[in-house]
């Protein structure tokens, strides 16, 4: 049983290594390494963006959450999709028109580049690292379960493979890896959904009836999975549950527009109009995908025997729900396919994250902060990015191994909250507010980062008093009553981010920045002077 998934995975790896080799040959120059030569078309980028988004957390995590907690798991899916309207209406086109390789290019347009780029780079690295550790931990756990490798070697193996893609293939390779993975994931999801509906004789009435009686939480008075409240309701999560849910929603809907590894994909297309169509393609694919996760999540609850998806200790094994469903409905071959797709998913997302983090360091910090933008040699920028990728990869592998018991969804949620609190306010204010100044940007980025991280540190995720029988990894990190009652900081940290950015600008206005606003407006809103595709 362990060999078929391994073989499929190796086949995918071989295919993607071939692509990396092809991309390496085409990788002449910075524009090729960082932005795939701006040669990616609308539907291709739509698939790549969707691919980046449909990570292990989405595919495995959400279907698992829906299986065990019903409707409340679906709330994540909704937030993840609606977030793209923020991207489409507010951020995607101005960003593409006014920048070159990274999110900080937009910010540095009329503000003092060095402090802004330094902080933007820090923020990018922070968000990417949290997101990356989540994926690596997920990878380790899954590979451990499906192939039998130990956690540490599994994580190291994934990390090394990812580094090959990033270091040799750059943005071109990582984009095409995402596209292929996205196609495989959609195919797998369609087949799985079809099989679930077939099991229920293609009747939605029968399906929903079965779901309402499935009760996977296995509670003494049986609960209806169709009903909200099994995870965030007052009965389960205490009086702060509903507010926590709103805070989560806010973080999700505003966070995507501040995620550096998603934003950077808008630089790989020839122009803003293509950036726009790629978001629309992504929304169609992601929307369809998330609707399907409800089919497999609910489907698993109605089809799988409880014993299959709980661990030896009787706890829900939420990450394995989708592959096991595939196994029960479609046999070993389908199980292998879905598992291979899960690995591919993690690999591709991790590569994308490393790509954007290392690009940010090289382009924002190295070239512009350390070398004052005088480093006009683009080849050394590329070299620094490659070296950074090694370092970032190495650090993530190390941290993932240390944090192997930390909840993956929690880390991803953290990344979204930080992105929404630190990055989004400064991006939005930069594009739309004439009086936005460097002080505002620096304060907004720094305090947004700090506020979200501190609020998480003092939240029930990390703080709590455990009775003595709770041991080891299950103990809260800080044995104190939680100071902040919500697990999601968004409802407080996002307004703080905006407020600080605005206050900073009002307190220290910057006439030079205001003077350049006209130029930024014309560029952002018409596309005049935007970076164009280079010819190959």
């Amino acid at each position, binding site marked *: 049983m362990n060999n078929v998934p391994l073989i499929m995975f190796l086949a995918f790896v071989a295919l993607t290594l071939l692509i990396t080799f092809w991309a390496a040959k085409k990788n002449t120059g910075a524009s090729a390494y960082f932005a795939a030569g701006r040669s990616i078309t609308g539907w291709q980028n739509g698939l790549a963006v969707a691919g980046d988004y449909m990570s292990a957390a989405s595919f495995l995590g959400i279907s698992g959450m829906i299986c065990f907690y019903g*409707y409340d798991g*679906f*709330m994540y899916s*909704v*937030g993840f*999709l*609606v977030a*793209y*309207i*923020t991207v*489409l*209406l*507010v951020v995607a*086109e101005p960003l593409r028109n006014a920048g*070159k390789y990274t999110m900080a*290019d937009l910010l540095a347009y009329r503000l003092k580049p060095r402090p802004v780029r330094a902080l933007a780079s820090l923020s990018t690295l922070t968000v990417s690292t949290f997101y990356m550790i989540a994926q690596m931990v997920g990878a380790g756990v899954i590979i451990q379960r499906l192939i039998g490798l130990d956690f540490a070697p599994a994580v190291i193996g994934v990390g090394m493979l990812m580094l090959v893609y990033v270091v040799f293939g750059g943005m071109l390779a990582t984009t095409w890896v995402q596209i292929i993975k996205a196609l495989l994931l959609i195919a797998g999801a369609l087949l799985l959904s079809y099989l679930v509906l077939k099991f229920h004789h293609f009747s939605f*009435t029968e399906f*929903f*009836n079965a*779901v*309402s009686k499935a009760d996977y939480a296995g509670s003494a008075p049986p609960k*209806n999975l*169709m*009903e*909200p*409240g099994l995870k*965030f*309701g*007052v009965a389960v999560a205490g009086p702060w*549950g*509903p*507010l926590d*849910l*709103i805070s*989560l*929603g*806010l973080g999700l*809907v505003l966070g995507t527009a501040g995620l550096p590894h998603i934003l950077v994909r808008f630089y790989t297309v020839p122009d803003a*109009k293509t950036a*726009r*169509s790629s*978001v*629309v393609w992504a*929304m*169609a694919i992601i*929307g369809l995908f*998330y*609707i399907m996760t409800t089919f497999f999540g609910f489907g698993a609850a109605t089809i799988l025997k409880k014993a299959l998806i709980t661990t030896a200790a009787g706890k829900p094994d939420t990450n394995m729900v989708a592959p096991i469903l595939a196994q029960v409905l479609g046999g070993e071959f389908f199980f292998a396919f879905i598992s291979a797709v899960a690995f591919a998913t993690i690999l591709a997302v991790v590569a994308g994250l490393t790509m954007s983090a290392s690009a940010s360091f090289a382009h924002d910090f190295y070239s512009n902060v350390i070398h004052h933008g005088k480093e006009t040699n683009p080849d050394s920028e590329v070299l620094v990015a490659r070296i950074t990728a090694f370092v970032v990869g190495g650090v993530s592998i190390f941290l993932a191994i240390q944090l192997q018991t930390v909840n993956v969804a929690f880390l991803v949620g953290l990344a979204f909250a930080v992105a929404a609190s630190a990055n989004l306010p400064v991006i939005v204010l930069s594009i739309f507010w004439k009086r936005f100044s460097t002080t505002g940007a620096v304060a907004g980025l720094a305090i947004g980062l700090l506020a979200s991280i501190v609020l998480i540190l003092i939240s029930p995720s990390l703080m709590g008093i455990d009775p003595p029988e709770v041991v080891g990894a299950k103990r809260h990190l800080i044995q104190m009553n939680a100071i902040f009652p919500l697990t999601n900081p968004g409802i407080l940290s996002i307004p703080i981010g905006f407020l600080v950015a605005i206050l900073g600008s009002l307190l220290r206005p910057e006439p030079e920045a205001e003077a350049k606003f*006209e*130029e930024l*407006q*014309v*560029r952002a*809103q*018409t*596309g*005049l*002077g935007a*970076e164009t595709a280079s010819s190959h």
Partner: protein
Amino acid sequence: MSEKSPVNWEALEAKPEFRALLARKSHFIIPATIFFLIYYLALPILVGYCPELMKKKVWGEVNVAYVFALSQFFMAWIMAFLYVRVAAKWDKSAAAVIHGHE
């Protein structure tokens, strides 16, 4: 960041056609953003604070909560469609602003 001949940005920005374009964009984007944020946030608010309303069944076992959540997907897609349609018109205006200048 690289332009071949110096562009008079202030002059472009001052053109009535450009200002009109900006006004049209705001007239869509601001209300649209307010709408979609309110529609979306209504979901966790109602689910959290009006659970009995949300649990009411609408069709078989399908309840208000599920229908409302599903409607968010359609809201998002419709919003995207409307945006693309209006943005195509903006593209034409933007091109006119640029070419009028050259």
